[in-house]
């Protein structure tokens, strides 16, 4: 009896100690596991071969974000990192400041949404002197020593708007209002305007269209929205056609149309796509939009940079495809996008 009891005592103590050890071990392991689960703050730089800068004027802009994401993915395939300059910072730096930072931080290359200003030209040249290749994106700076320009044909964009307007010719004179930025450095909108004008002028029905431009104040942060709302809710008669040359104007315009019940009173053509714009086209609030293949642009940025690095020179101009989306082809477009995502 005693022998049996002693054995069972020893066995039960043994089992208990084993359970205890297991529980404690589990506790320690669990604790270690928690550490592995801690989120990684940033991607480690050590694993990247090169570090490039992406600089644009409006960091919230969907268009530039889409280009950035595409370019970043393209660079990542080569084990390089493309940094969206200023996005990690709490201070809102201008493009010029960000250019300086990129140069002083000795990055390997810069992709910048430039303009034709002298300051930008100087900075691009300074980067070039420091051995940092610069590729301009969307808006060029032709007088600088940038290595390549990735963009799209503004003239072509203008032509597309013109063609869409011509489709709706009537037996009366219709006004086409083009909303333009007051930013004098932004030459691209002038080219777009020229494209629209030339397309309409060359057509037989040019006499039925009257082109007008309107400068949208951008002196303060929210002034664009105020100007566009003012135009749409104003008592003046609305023009038959309105062309918004960027994503911000487009979004503001369609919101104002809805807010002031002016849907159908005017044909609004926008620029670029986002969910709001696409939905507006589906609902016929917006007549159409002209968009650029951002993924293609992103890829071109990477290709231009790599080509320059390996060959020492690169194509001066790499244009991306332009697509016009209207109520007629939106389903097709969406299908293609979905397929692309997949």
């Amino acid at each position, binding site marked *: 009896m005693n022998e049996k009891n002693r054995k069972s005592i020893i066995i*039960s103590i043994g089992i*208990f100690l084993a359970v205890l050890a297991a529980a404690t071990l589990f506790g320690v392991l669990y604790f270690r596991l928690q550490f592995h689960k*801690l989120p990684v*703050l940033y991607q480690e730089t050590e694993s990247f071969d090169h570090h490039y800068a992406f600089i644009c004027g409006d960091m919230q802009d969907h268009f530039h974000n889409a280009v950035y994401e595409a370019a970043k993915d393209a660079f990542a395939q080569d084990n390089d990192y493309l940094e969206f300059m200023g996005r990690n910072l709490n201070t809102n730096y201008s493009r010029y400041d960000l250019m300086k930072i990129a140069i002083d931080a000795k990055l390997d290359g810069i992709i910048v949404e430039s303009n034709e200003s002298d300051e930008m030209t100087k900075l691009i040249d300074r980067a070039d002197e420091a051995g940092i290749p610069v590729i301009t994106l969307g808006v060029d700076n032709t007088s600088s020593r940038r290595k390549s320009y990735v963009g799209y044909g503004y003239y072509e964009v203008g032509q597309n708007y013109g063609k869409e307007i011509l489709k709706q010719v009537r037996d009366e004179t219709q006004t086409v209002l083009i909303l333009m930025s007051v930013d004098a450095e932004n030459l691209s909108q002038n080219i777009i305007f020229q494209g629209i004008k030339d397309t309409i002028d060359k057509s037989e029905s040019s006499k039925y269209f009257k082109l007008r431009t309107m400068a949208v104040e951008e002196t303060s942060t929210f002034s664009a929205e105020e100007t566009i709302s003012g135009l749409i809710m104003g008592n003046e008669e609305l023009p038959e056609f309105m062309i918004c040359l960027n994503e911000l104007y487009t979004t503001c315009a369609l919101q104002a149309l809805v807010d002031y019940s002016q849907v159908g009173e005017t044909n609004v053509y926008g620029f670029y796509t986002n969910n709001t714009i696409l939905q507006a086209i589906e609902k016929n609030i917006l007549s159409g939009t002209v968009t650029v293949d951002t993924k293609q642009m992103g890829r071109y940025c990477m290709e231009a940079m790599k080509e320059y690095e390996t060959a020492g020179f690169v194509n001066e101009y790499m244009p991306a495809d332009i697509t016009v989306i209207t109520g007629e082809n939106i389903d097709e477009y969406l299908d293609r996008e979905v397929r692309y995502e997949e």
Partner: protein
Amino acid sequence: MKSKKPVSIQMKLLLSYTVTSLLVIIVNILLFVSINGIAEELSRAYETNVLLNELTDSLERVQSSMTEYLNTKATDAIERYYDTEQEYRDDLQRVVEGSQNSIVLENILNLSDTYLETATDTVQAKRSRIVDKYNVSFEEAEELYGYINSYIYSLNNEQFRYNSTNYAILQGSLRNLEFLTLTILLVVTGVNILLTTFITKNIMDPVQERELMMEAHLKDAELKYLQAQINPHFLFNTLNAGAQLAMLENADRTCEYIQNMAAFFRYKIKRDEKDTTLSEEIGLVDNYIYILNVRFSGDIHFEKDIQESCVNTPVPGMILQPIVENAVNYGVRDLEREKLISLRVFSEEEEIKVEICDNGIGMTKERIAEVMSGEASAAKDNKNLSGNGVGLINVISRLRLFYNVENVLTIESEGPDRGTKVTIHIPKRI
């Protein structure tokens, strides 16, 4: 059964206590170590923020010492500039070692390089009095100073957010560990209770074993007792037969003797352990003395002085005879002179007194005290009592139980050879 040296109760208790205590101690140590680990991690959670704050401070010192030098061209300012520059580089190194590699950090490092170069250029230009140059490069340095500060600030914010997440996770795991600790401690306590129960149950077993053995002995004793009872019956019957035979043969004295013996044994059978009356007890003493006198050739003189009113008093059985027997065995047996035993029963106010006196060898006071306290060796007494088996202390305890009074029996003796008087005090009101 194997003959194994049984473990003592003390050892078992010690074992159970030690094992359970050890378990608790081990568990506590393990948990303490784990909790300590977490606490350490918690205290380190914001370490990177501290480092970055220090970096900001030392950057500011570089900038201000440079500005001071540009303002004053003082020697101690330039010394301070070089000191703070080195300090800043050291702090930068510490930040690099203390935090994860990141894009922002890399930018800070490169910007800092450029900044320090520019600052040194500025200082050198000032030394060489190239006014244009140091003005321009001071502006550049100031701009860079702003960028770096902004980057550090941003990194600090990011780190803070990240560290806060970590802190929350660590706190969560601390809570989990606390829960685990509590659970483990509860389990350990439970197991300890089980273990102690188990071990102490084991302790109880030998006790039960002993109880069993005692029971067996008791049964055995009872059996022997029954066997012993057969003898007086047999003796009683045979004695009666002997008495009849003696009567037939006209041996009157033999007949009387045998009848007395028979009566004595019959009383023993009937009255052992039961209450009876004083008269029956006196009768038994008569029988006993008669038998003794036949045995000792009639040389024990027995005197009785009985108050008739007292004879029906109830008493526990077998109380007088053992006292008389003691008086004979220890008092008068070896006397050369006349052996006298007297029995007096008389009533007093509160009690009835039964006095048994002898003229024997008497008792010392010490001996009396010994007998009264029951210290007189029972074994010795039993041996000397030659089989009747009822000692004086037994009589006393039965009297006490019967009357529920302490003072039931007194022994007096005036000294050696001056006889002994044993008095039984029977209270009238029970």
